[in-house]
């Protein structure tokens, strides 16, 4: 298990280095003269020069790359062009919101998805099951932004039940109140996906022979369902949760834009639009790191649930 994890970790390093190289090369790849886009019609040549040196465009690329790497190792992601603050700080300020949103979304998706899936598995081959299956297909086919818009139309505009924007005034209750809509919108797609996965995984597990052993030795049904079968059936779901956290991280872009919440996703969208290069680099780097970590956790927890890998 330890070896497995180290191996997985070591494999991540070159990946991250390459990611960094790609991010670095953004300044050469992004079209348009950065100075013009960034400074607009009010630019003076001196300002442009200063900006170029800030973006590292005045050195040969490999030198700049090394400097960039050095800085990153020091934890310095540069300074945002428009915010006059360090990129790291800007990101760290908004990151918690994205993380909370993503986790809440995933939590909802897992909870609702597994519940629907278990119900469907339990009532297999009934009309109720067909209804649940269709429900999970439909939710899985609802993109985050559509869910978000619909939630706003229904709950904020028509019934005025949920706030449509923002993160609230900082109080816990208000924060939660403001989180419901976004988290729900974010979770919708994965709810259906997890429900389907749970159902099929559960059915497959219940069909296996060891379940008969357990039954035949008099272990009660609820115990078999929720202890024995669920742990086995949950494996593919766990694997998918890690993936899902990454996907939801992406989906958070939409939710954050629609619900006007601060967060990494919106930060990246804004900075891409503004051509705030250091911020684009920093934001994407952090998103990639989070994503890689989520995948890593998924792999490891997958291994944890599969004793065959665990032992290795």
């Amino acid at each position, binding site marked *: 298990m330890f070896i497995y994890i180290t191996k997985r970790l070591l494999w991540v390093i070159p990946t991250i280095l390459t990611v960094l190289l790609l991010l670095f090369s953004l300044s050469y790849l992004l079209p*348009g*003269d950065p100075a013009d886009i960034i400074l607009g019609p009010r630019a*003076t040549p001196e300002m442009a020069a200063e900006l170029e040196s800030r973006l590292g465009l005045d050195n040969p690329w490999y030198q700049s790359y090394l400097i960039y790497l050095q800085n990153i190792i020091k934890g310095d992601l540069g300074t945002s062009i428009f915010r006059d603050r360090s990129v790291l700080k800007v990101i760290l300020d908004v990151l918690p919101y994205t993380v909370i949103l993503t986790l809440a979304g995933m939590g909802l998706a897992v909870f609702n998805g597994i519940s629907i899936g278990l119900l469907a598995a339990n009532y297999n081959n009934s009309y109720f099951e067909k209804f649940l299956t269709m429900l999970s297909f439909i939710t899985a086919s609802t993109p985050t932004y559509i869910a978000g818009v619909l939630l706003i139309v229904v709950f904020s505009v028509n019934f005025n039940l949920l706030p449509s924007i*923002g993160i609230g005034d900082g109080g816990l209750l208000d924060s939660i109140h403001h989180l419901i809509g976004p988290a729900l919108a974010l979770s919708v797609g994965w709810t259906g996906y997890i429900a389907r996965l749970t159902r099929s995984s559960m059915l497959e597990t219940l069909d296996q022979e060891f379940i008969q052993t357990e039954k035949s030795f008099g272990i009660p049904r609820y115990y078999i369902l929720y202890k024995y079968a669920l742990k086995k059936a949950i494996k593919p779901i766990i694997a998918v949760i890690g993936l899902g956290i990454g996907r939801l991280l992406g989906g958070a872009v939409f939710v954050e834009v629609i619900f006007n919440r601060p967060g990494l996703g919106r930060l990246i969208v804004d900075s891409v639009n503004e051509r705030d290069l250091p911020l684009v680099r920093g934001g994407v780097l952090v998103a990639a790191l989070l994503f890689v970590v989520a995948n890593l956790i998924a792999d490891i927890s997958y291994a944890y649930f599969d004793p065959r890998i665990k032992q290795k």
Partner: protein
Amino acid sequence: QDDSLNIAIPGRAQTLDPAYLQRVLSDWPVMNSIFNGLVKYKPGTFEVVPDLAKEWEISEDNTEITFQLKEGIEFHKGYGEFTAEDVKFSFERIIAEDANSPEAQSFINLERVEVINQYTVKLILTQPMGRLFTSTLPFNAGLIVSKKAVEEMGREKFASNPIGTGPYVFEEWDVNNNITLKRNDDYFEVGAEYGEIVFMPMSDPTSQELALQSGEIDIGQLTLDNFDQISQMEKFEAEIYPDLAIQYVAFNTSKEPLNNKKLREALRYIINPEEILIGAFAGKAERANSILLEDMTGYWQAPDFKLEDVGEDYVWNLLAEAGYPEGEGLELEYVTDANEERRLIGALIQDQLSRFNIDLNIEALEVGPKIDRWQDGSYDITYARFTNTVDPGYNFQWNLSEQLGKWNLFHWSNKEYDNLWQEAETTLDSNLRAENYKKMQQLMNDDSIGIWVTHGVKTPAWITEIEPVFSPDGVILPWLISNSEE
């Protein structure tokens, strides 16, 4: 909280240092509440009245202006009394070599600032400066910062911890980019009524609208289409203000085929700005016939080219004369960015041109590539919005020859225009300036380089409990907001 107001701004503020203002729409209302200038626009007008200055005197040759300052005004947070030193510091930091301030242009002819005594200060100009009182001093470049604060904090920190003399004191700039201001209880004039103001960035008008309805904000913008519906609600009031900016269709006059004036004329008939006003502005925006608003110095109304007036045949003829009988084979390229309004406008123009068999290829680009294309001139038609100030000199500068390859979207160069502009810049004679600007507009009109469409609109809306005051172009003046129920 009754004592607090939430105001939406259309985007994240970028800096609160007046010398580095980036985004007029979001930065300006905040700065305006924190700082004062020597002079200001009288609320609700563009008339210039004293602010921190009591009075001033202009020398004969118009190059020396001496200000008498009000006494006993304190900076926020104990940064001491406001004196002539602060004025000198505030202006000279902008024109300093290493300042890189985008406002350097605003003080283009300022040589130095002389402190006569604690309450007297003199601006020394190299040449007379037409825009000094119209746009430089009453706008952000003229705001006075605390010398002590800037020197203590350094520029970077000051940008997010501004110290001024204004009616509101900066309190906090949080993760959400919400900016909180607290009332300045020692304000030298009548203080503000509301104790706290929070500026909340909301880039998209639909969000502002929703937020207004759900009570998250007290003042925001409405979308044009919902304006009527929401302004009729009992809970809200709203008003339409013309914007100061200019939005226009620009023809690329230095590239085939639109280097042909006949063709440009034909296009002026074919493209119907009225439809644009309806389609993209819900009929709420006024037609613009000039770069300037109607009551500004130098306003000249460009004639309207209406298809109804001349008839289709006339246009067909123009096309034929330009070498495109029946519009055959005319294919134009329209470059725009992903902004939704502008895409709609593209679609409209496309349809209008198609009625004359002209093909319009729309290329909607990212802002970066779009500016690239603008600058290297590889397009035929584009649509642009340029921010204006109250001073025409600023607004007319983009069409100068020196702006070719930069922001001259017509790719149009006219010596006479250049000279007229230069002359107007260096005089304080407003009649002469007005004359020159009118002539410049005629020149543009004669060459049919584009179509002024609209100045745009601002549609602020607010809850009925409050009574806000706006500048003529619809910018909120937060410290003047009063409670309408009292």
